[in-house]
């Protein structure tokens, strides 16, 4: 298992380097411009000056290598410095700066993490918690009305675009009923029960939209996986032992069915960080997704590049996590 993990990590290095190059090329070659959003009243000489100060005049390769060094050497040092009060990083080790805000990209990401984790994370967890029982019951009572309804709801869940459901919820619950705020307050701090309640209220709608979407997908997986296992011979064995139906389904079948589902859930985690862009946009949860969109719109190459690469790392990482989980959960699998 360990060697397997190490091997996968080793393979991941060239993959990630290659991905970073692709991302770099694609992002850099895109004809967008960091000065495009400035008012037209700013003359072109000034724009040229600004571009130069952003390092846009360097050759492509130099910029790529610089970025690599910044990402893999300078940033970690700076982050260690910040965390432990060391001073490993010297002054000439420039961090990756966003073109728009002129601040380190890492700081931006750290700043946006809480709301993304809160909203999107919660919705993912809730989605999973809803999905599992639905999937289990749907499979156990295949073709029953519960299954039919569950199938319909989950299909509808990913058939309706989130920007549509989001706006609909806002109009109903914020504008008409006034129950929940339409704009997420990222500065809100939970200190007591009342403020916790405020937090819950502002999370309800985005979480609901996303959870529905996530639950829809995962419940389908759960159902399929349960169905696969319900017909297995060992289920018959368990019944022949005189175990109650509950134990048979919730212990024997579920444990086996969870193996592929857990990996699906793990694989879905990277999307927690990036996939909720539209929902973040609709509810003004200024999280990672919104950061990315703004950076793309503003031609902020370092931010786009870094974020995209982090997503790639997460995807690769959680792929690995999923595989390792698979190995841990399923004793038959031995990686070596």
């Amino acid at each position, binding site marked *: 298992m360990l060697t397997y993990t190490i091997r996968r990590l080793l393979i991941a290095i060239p993959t990630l380097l*290659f991905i970073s190059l692709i991302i770099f090329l694609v992002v850099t070659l895109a004809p967008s411009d960091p000065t495009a959003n400035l008012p037209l009243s700013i003359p072109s000489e000034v724009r040229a000056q600004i571009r130069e100060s952003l390092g846009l005049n360097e050759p492509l390769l130099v910029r790529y290598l610089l970025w690599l060094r910044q990402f893999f050497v300078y940033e970690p040092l700076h982050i260690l410095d910040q965390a432990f009060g060391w001073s490993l990083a010297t002054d000439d080790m420039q961090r990756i700066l966003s073109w728009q805000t002129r601040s380190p990209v890492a700081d931006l990401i750290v700043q946006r993490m809480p709301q993304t984790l809160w909203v999107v994370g919660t919705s993912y967890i809730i989605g999973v918690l809803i999905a599992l029982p639905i999937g289990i019951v749907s499979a156990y009572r295949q073709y029953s009305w519960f299954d039919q309804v569950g199938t319909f709801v989950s299909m*509808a869940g990913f058939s309706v675009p989130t920007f549509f459901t989001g706006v609909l919820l806002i109009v109903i619950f914020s504008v008409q009923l006034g129950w929940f705020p339409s704009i997420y307050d990222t500065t809100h701090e939970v200190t007591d029960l009342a403020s916790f309640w405020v937090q819950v209220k502002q999370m309800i709608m985005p979480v609901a939209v996303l959870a529905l979407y996530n639950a829809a997908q995962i419940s389908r997986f759960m159902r399929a996986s349960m169905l696969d296992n319900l017909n297995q011979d060992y289920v018959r064995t368990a019944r022949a032992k005189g175990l109650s139906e509950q134990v048979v389904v919730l212990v024997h079948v579920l444990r086996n069915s969870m193996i592929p589902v857990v990996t699906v859930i793990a694989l879905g985690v990277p999307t927690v960080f990036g996939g909720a862009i539209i929902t973040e946009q609709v509810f003004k949860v200024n999280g990672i997704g919104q950061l990315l969109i703004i950076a793309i719109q503003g031609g902020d190459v370092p931010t786009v590049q870094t974020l995209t690469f982090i997503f790639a790392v997460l995807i690769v990482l959680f792929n690995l996590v999923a595989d390792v989980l698979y190995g841990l959960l399923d004793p038959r699998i031995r990686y070596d």
Partner: protein
Amino acid sequence: MTDMPVEETEIIRPPRNQWLDVWDQFKTHKGALMGAAFFVFILLAVTIGPLIWTIDPTYIDIRARNQGPSLGHPFGTDQLGRDTLARMLSGGQVSVAVGVAAMALSLVVGTFIGVLAGYFRRLDGILMRLTDLFLALPLLPLLLVIIMLFRDALRSAFGPEGGIFILIVGVIGITSWMQTARIVRGDVLALKEREFVLAARSIGTPSHRMITRHVLPNVLSPIMVSATLGIANAIITESALSFLGLGFPSDFPTWGRLLFDSTDYLQQYPERVIWPGLAISLTVLSVNYMGDGLRDALDPRIRGR
């Protein structure tokens, strides 16, 4: 060699096509049947519809703007007085075309890669690396960037609408083939171990015929299922792109675009959101149900051969 020629159980039946069996099973899945019916309805509406409902979707009748449903405009008009029904029909044409074309592209790429990787051991490693690589690419940013990169080259080559159509179809296709490739590869790997492939090899069937004759027909069912999901996925992706301002230009109606444009009017003219919203959701839903039914119908275990 004195087998009884015809036994009781072997009542001579006319040769029965596989697909008839599939259809028989498919018919028993009510959801799938309804889905298929609705999808056919949508297809007919967007292809034949514009011939019947002949109002030009781009015609501006400024006096008739923001009208509710009426006889002249059954779905009402938009803020420039364009007929919503006509725009829905021509928008549907684009959306469905995008869905079908993107699905076709991703299927072709996915199947090609999947079959090659599964069939030729030597290519497997590198092709699967490639697939993993694509899977590891964060799609949305890349989508956005690719659209910016190539939009204009294609526009000049294929005209303003053709260009963006090709681009969107291309982008959605190129970024969604990986699942198909993986599934197909898995199936091909399993298939390769099946004895009839070995039998064909023992006959000396060359690889290309092996693939077309034995492998492809047998991976058809996962491909078909992928196909339905692919259509749904492409339609949704196109509308999401529209939402992020990257889809078709706004003078070019698609369902996604119409939906996005009308969300601002949700309160005043809710029907304007309802039409494209319903169209997208129902189409995707119907296609999903179709896929579900197809999956069951194509699974011999369920079909009970």
